[in-house]
């Protein structure tokens, strides 16, 4: 590593090695792109962490912004947006340096008098001793995190620094936001802020002027100080044209997957029976026994070792008594989905392996951290099926691909959108559409739909979605595909996870439990 905190995660695009001088790139940062290309993930968040950013890295930053904006159909705003992001980074660095400056002079930044005294010389001092401050930023590891995150139908670019906004600073920023409303040109904004003690004029008002010009408006910008850091964010929505094209194509894919059979009706009926608390185990067992093929397959699954039953099970009533109604329900979903979708190809096998791990983690999270027995079953099944859209799109017959290509030409859908579908774009939406087609219960549909966008889930099923999201995220963390900074902090907070160390501790326990279970089964 160069410096104390220089690391760089790049997920969405093929990185240009020339821009990485002086940084350590996580070994899987490049794999992330390959992973996307294989189609096993959605468009993943990208993350930069640094204490200072050499300007030679700007072309890389521009390129990443360009790649994300292309996904949104918003390429034309790349230059002004890049400018705004660089402004936020420059401001974040200045905010970190300000803490060093105050600390060195024994000034308390939150005290009004000290703040006013300190700010009189701060800008001049930083201009004259920039090298010293850059050195101190590295030594004290006062880093800046830049995150690119697709949430729902919008891209959020956030810049986090290591210093929490003081009330005085917050008041100044809001005052500037209000003042910026009156400006019609950059010059007006610059002229007004020339006498500012906080900046040399190229500050927040310029940023807001740019956002106004590119049609985003001040509501797309936010700044918040919390837990010892400040996060500035810009939210860029997907273009309406793009959104419509994605919707049309998603629906067409789901509609036209003729090779995909319906979920077996007898299984759907059985699942509904397991949902009914009035129905006795013997009734369900009798219903299963009427289907010899299903009986044989279920017994085979039960005896396969996963349930670690003490002895060979030869009848369905015996199996249901041992694995319980919930266990049976899980078994029905898992067995039927795998039977329909198959797992012969290597990639399918890998997707299912990931799904089983996610399911087990989601189950453990629901049991251990959420302590909600009533969602255990749903968390497991939703975890198991969360990537069902990905599995289906990856297994599309070549004829279906060709049909989709023709359909895209007819509907003037951008080739890139079609191509991205093959790589996993929108797999959560496609999965949820298929889950609806198969009459899965609402909680599973939500678990599938929002497993990358948990904050959009309905309140009713929030706990299940959060379990699946975190389980999937822990799997991705283990594979080095994402980093702690990329995770949704409100979700982590919901599980009582406040720090990276806590998350790594949880991940380690989940992994150990899964491996223990796996080795027990292998030994049977």
């Amino acid at each position, binding site marked *: 590593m160069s410096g104390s905190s220089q690391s760089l995660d790049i997920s969405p695009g093929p990185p240009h090695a020339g821009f990485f001088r002086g940084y350590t790139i996580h070994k899987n940062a490049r794999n992330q792109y390959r992973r996307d290309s294989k189609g096993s993930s959605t468009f993943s968040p990208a993350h930069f962490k640094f204490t*200072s*950013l*050499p*300007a*030679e890295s700007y072309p890389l930053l521009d390129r990443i912004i360009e790649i994300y904006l292309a996904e949104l159909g918003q390429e034309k705003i790349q*230059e*002004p947006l890049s*400018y705004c992001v*660089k*402004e936020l*980074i*420059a401001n974040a*660095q*200045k905010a970190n340096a300000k803490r060093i400056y105050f600390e060195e002079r024994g000034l308390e930044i939150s005290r009004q008098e000290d703040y006013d005294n300190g700010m009189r010389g701060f800008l*001049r001092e*930083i*201009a*004259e001793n*920039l*090298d010293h401050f*850059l050195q101190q930023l590295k030594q004290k590891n006062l880093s800046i995190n830049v995150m690119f995150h697709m949430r729902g139908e919008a891209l959020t670019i956030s810049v986090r620094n290591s210093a929490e906004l003081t009330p005085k600073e917050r008041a100044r920023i809001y005052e500037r936001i209000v003042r910026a409303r009156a400006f019609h*040109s*950059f*010059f007006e904004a*610059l002229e007004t802020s*020339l006498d500012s003690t906080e900046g*040399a*004029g*190229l500050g927040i008002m*310029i940023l807001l002027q*740019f956002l106004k*010009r590119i049609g985003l408006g001040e509501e797309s910008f936010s700044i918040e100080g919390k837990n010892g850091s400040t996060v500035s964010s810009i939210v860029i929505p997907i273009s309406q044209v793009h959104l419509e094209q994605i919707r049309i194509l998603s629906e067409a894919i789901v509609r036209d997957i003729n090779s995909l059979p319906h979920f077996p009706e007898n299984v759907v009926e059985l699942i509904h029976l397991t949902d009914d608390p009035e129905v006795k185990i013997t009734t369900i067992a009798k219903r299963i026994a009427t289907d010899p093929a299903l009986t044989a397959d279920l017994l085979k699954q039960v005896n396969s070792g996963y349930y670690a039953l003490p002895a060979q099970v030869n009848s369905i009533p015996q199996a249901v008594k041992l694995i319980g109604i919930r266990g049976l329900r899980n078994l029905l979903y898992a067995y039927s989905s795998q039977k329909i979708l198959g797992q012969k190809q290597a990639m399918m096998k890998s997707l299912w392996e990931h799904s089983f791990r996610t399911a087990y983690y989601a189950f453990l999270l629901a049991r251990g951290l959420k302590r909600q027995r009533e969602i255990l079953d749903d968390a497991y099944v939703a975890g198991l099926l969360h990537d069902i859209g990905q599995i289906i799109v990856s297994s599309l017959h070549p004829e279906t691909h060709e049909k989709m290509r023709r359909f895209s030409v007819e509907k003037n859908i951008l080739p890139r959108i079609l191509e991205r579908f093959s790589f996993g774009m929108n797999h959560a939406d496609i999965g949820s559409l298929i889950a609806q087609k198969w009459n899965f219960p609402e909680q599973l549909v939500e678990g599938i739909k929002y497993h990358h966008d948990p904050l959009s889930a309905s309140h009713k099923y929030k706990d299940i979605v959060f379990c699946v999201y975190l389980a999937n995220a822990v799997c991705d963390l283990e594979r080095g595909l994402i980093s702690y900074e990329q995770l949704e902090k409100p979700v982590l907070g919901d599980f009582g996870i406040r720090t990276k160390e806590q998350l790594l501790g949880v991940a380690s326990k989940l992994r150990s439990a899964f491996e223990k279970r796996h080795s027990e089964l292998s030994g049977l």
Partner: protein
Amino acid sequence: MVLWYRSPRSLNRPAALVARDLTVLFSNSRLRKMLKKFNHDVVGLRIGEVLDCKYAASPSRCGETEGCLQCELRRLIELTRIAGERLTGIPISFQNKSGARKTFKITTEKVREAVLLIIAGLPVDP
């Protein structure tokens, strides 16, 4: 070859035409006289090198150093190029090689993909 519609040569102020990567494409004699430099010490170099910016003397070039993130001149040039708006009389400060702080009042104007930089006020040591 004329790359701009308004030649720095015709201006009665020190001026330079600066490319996106901060390379000086053209300068007028007033600028060279002010800086006491020859044409070959100006054209083809980065603007920070021409103005003797402290960071331009570091191993990385002007526009490529850690110090460039906070550089007011770089940001002003980029703002002008992207926004396409003429910005007049903006005070820009930087440190020169000897550590002295210099402040210029600068006017910028977008000229195709380059930026015309006019030094509207003489350097002042604050």
